[in-house]
């Protein structure tokens, strides 16, 4: 055997080792591997010195033969290997070549050092096969066994935020946040970077503009205060806003291009708009309006109603974390001229592996039907069915949606049902109804309207308006289970004369819930802020 041939053989083995370690050096006739390396002594064998295996240089590569001779050239033989398999699928089993000792590092990290591992990507912490129980591996105070405290966080990873906590109104009760822009209307509220971002629109000198403003956790304005989101975009409205971990995302509609189109922008934690500025998502004649916005953890998704096909349909657009559109507009519903129906008022939420969207499906000449469908996050064709949550005999309108642990909860209000209450239903990602529609509020002969929801794992917090007291609408809150059973009474939040309407609730710091709402206590449509605080908690 020439040196060149030996070198070639060794190289072949080394290359093959990368894909089939067990085969290299094996003598099994059933295994197909590279030529065994020739040797004169064991130190010629690749891997010599590796204490995870025992090598030998044997005549003809026969493990039972003696050392090589002139008639029987030597070949490397693996006599034994250290078996490190611990039969745990959540560990990587490795042998240290320098010591021959086994190690079993976990397949997922414990980045925050709290002793609990993160789940595998795409798995929920604690689920079988997830290999991790830490529901937030970036927060050392969050792990199984941690003490659940009232902070708006699921500290003990049991899937429940602030177990058993009640939310009570803090003091001061309400703070006016809008300036001289009446009439004003809420658009969205989200907390991130230490402040709330409130987005709303209102009229200044006859033009309707859209504004943003940062608020401290107590509702105080953060400089520079009320700021136009778009300068002189007369007719702008909307403003759903979400926090994406390092920035806010906001969507709205404005007619700067000559027709109403949907726009998106990112805002820094200090409220400044992030380059490249406003990204136009729709460009069609007619009306692209009523945007809804969700953050999936990696992408933004905007859905809106759009009549480019003649009748209002629901369209959507994906954007990456930097706000760059992914693909084009996607039609989520099929309404068009002559279809005999329209689809309006979409609301979307991000679930475990899908996006859920609820909307108002309107057969021509018939009452609207609150509808729901779970769709893939990439907006490809849905496999789950469309679920009708109302029967079309009453005027159920304006659905909103949230995801809580294992289900979507869809809420709406019904203008003609008895009672004219807030209603809700729960549906899983496959479209199975887990809790059929039922009334959440009890307005008697009065009316409840404008529900906003926050998920608490095993509970859902509702905030809504109700005119049962006879002095206009006031805000109320109630907590229900995810099966929609009441856990608390309805608690009145506002007490001033004039209507208090259209609350938008968002989680804040330390268990707070911030609420942006419209209020007419001063005779005009102004925007106010109030908050609920986490009042009690206890580990189960």
């Amino acid at each position, binding site marked *: 055997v020439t040196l060149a041939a030996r070198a070639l053989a060794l190289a072949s083995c080394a290359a093959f080792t990368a894909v089939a370690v067990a085969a290299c050096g094996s003598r099994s006739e059933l295994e197909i591997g590279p030529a065994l390396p020739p040797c004169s002594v064991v130190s010629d064998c690749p891997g010599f010195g590796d204490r995870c295996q025992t090598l030998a240089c044997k005549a003809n590569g026969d493990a039972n033969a003696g050392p090589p001779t002139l008639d029987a050239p030597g070949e490397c033989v693996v006599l034994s290997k250290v078996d490190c398999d611990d039969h745990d699928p959540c560990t990587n089993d490795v042998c240290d070549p320098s010591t021959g000792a086994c190690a079993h590092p976990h397949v997922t990290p414990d980045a925050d050092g709290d002793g609990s591992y993160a789940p595998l990507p795409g798995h929920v912490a604690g689920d079988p096969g997830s290999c991790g129980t830490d529901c937030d591996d970036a927060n050392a105070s969050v792990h199984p066994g941690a003490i659940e405290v009232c902070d708006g966080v699921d500290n003990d990873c049991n899937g429940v935020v602030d177990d058993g906590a009640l939310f009570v109104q803090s003091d001061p009760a309400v703070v006016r946040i809008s300036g001289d822009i009446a009439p004003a209307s809420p658009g969205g509220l989200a907390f991130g970077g230490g402040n709330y971002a409130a987005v709303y629109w209102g009229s200044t000198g006859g033009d309707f503009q859209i504004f943003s403003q940062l608020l401290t956790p107590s509702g105080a304005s953060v400089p520079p205060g009320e700021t136009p989101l778009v300068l002189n975009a*007369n007719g702008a409205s909307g403003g759903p806003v979400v926090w994406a971990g390092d920035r806010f995302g906001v969507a709205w509609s404005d007619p700067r291009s000559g027709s109403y189109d949907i726009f998106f922008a990112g805002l820094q934690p200090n409220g400044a708009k992030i380059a490249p500025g406003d990204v136009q998502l729709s460009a069609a*004649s007619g*009306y692209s309006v009523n945007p809804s916005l969700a953050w999936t953890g990696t992408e933004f998704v905007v859905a809106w109603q759009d009549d480019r096909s003649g009748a209002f349909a629901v369209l959507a657009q994906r954007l990456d974390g930097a706000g760059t559109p992914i693909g084009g507009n996607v039609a989520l519903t099929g309404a068009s001229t002559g279809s005999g129906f329209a689809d*309006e008022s979409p609301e979307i939420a991000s679930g475990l592996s899908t996006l859920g969207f609820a909307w108002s499906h309107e057969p021509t000449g018939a009452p609207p039907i609150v509808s729901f469908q779970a769709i893939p996050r990439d907006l490809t064709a849905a496999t789950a069915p469309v679920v009708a949550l109302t029967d079309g005999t009453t005027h159920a309108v304006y659905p909103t949606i949230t995801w809580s642990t294992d289900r979507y909860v869809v809420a709406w209000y019904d203008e003609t049902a008895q009672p004219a209450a807030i209603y809700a239903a729960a549906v899983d990602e496959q479209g199975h109804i887990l809790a059929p529609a039922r009334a959440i509020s009890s307005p008697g002969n009065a*009316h409840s309207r*404008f529900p906003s929801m926050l998920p608490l794992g095993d509970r859902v917090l509702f905030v809504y308006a109700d005119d049962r007291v006879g002095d206009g609408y006031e805000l109320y809150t109630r907590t229900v289970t995810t099966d929609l059973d009441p856990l608390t009474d309805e608690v009145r939040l506002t007490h001033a004369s004039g209507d208090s*309407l259209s609350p938008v609730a968002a989680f804040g710091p330390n268990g707070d819930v911030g609420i942006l709402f419209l209020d007419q206590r001063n005779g005009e449509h102004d925007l106010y802020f109030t908050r609920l605080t986490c009042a009690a908690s206890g580990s189960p």
Partner: protein
Amino acid sequence: VGDTVDQVVEAVRMRRLHVLDVSTEVAEIPLATQHQIDTNRRAACELPRGDGRERRIVAATRASCPRPRPPFPARLGGLPWGMRTRRTDDRRPGRKDARLAAAIGLSLVALAAALASAGGCAPSIDSTTSAGTGGGPPSKFATSTGAAAEPDASADAFEDYHDPGCPDAGPPLTDFQCDAYASDSSACGPGFGCYIAVDYPMTPCGQETYVTFCARAGHGRQGASCVSAQDCAGGFVCVVTGSGNQCVRLCPLTGADGCTDGLVCDPIDVQGFGGCL
């Protein structure tokens, strides 16, 4: 007279449709001629006619009378998704559009140039997209500055963006010719009602005009389905509610609004006016 007016106005309309692309087109419409057209159109729109003419009037109204009467935008307070305007005759110029265009006349060319040079809103109209051509997905995504928002790995996600916005076009003009709150014939005479509308600008970042006008009254009352304003009775306005286009009663945003059955007076696109929703 109606036919002539329609023909003339249609001719104007066709010219007007090109304004977005060639602003000089507007400047070519003599102010005096435009005013005459307005006058004729007003007469054609307001004259009561027999059945045979009414259908034509409807057609004329949609094309040339003081704004198509589309469902009107409602701004239902606080709903995260809002409620926005529907213009069934989108981009079709109304009388006000043409008159406004004529009124600002030659200055439009300069204005357009100013917009472009200022880096303002005008460049945000991406001529490669489908705006004004009947819809369809955008062929690319325009930003405020007109640049395509292509992925840019080198871009700093937190680079500040200084929004040029739109130049201030000034507050909307108003042309209120009757009492839009009137639900009877007192405002416009028997068989007619007073309607409220917005004449939207035909140019990016343009100036709106709020108008009220008399037109043959429809019958739709609170909650009735509608396609255009004149499907509704006087005192009502057709709005995109987000739950079907409906006639809703006009209401004042301050003081007693007169809304019943749990409805609230929500702002619509005309400052000071609301709709019971």
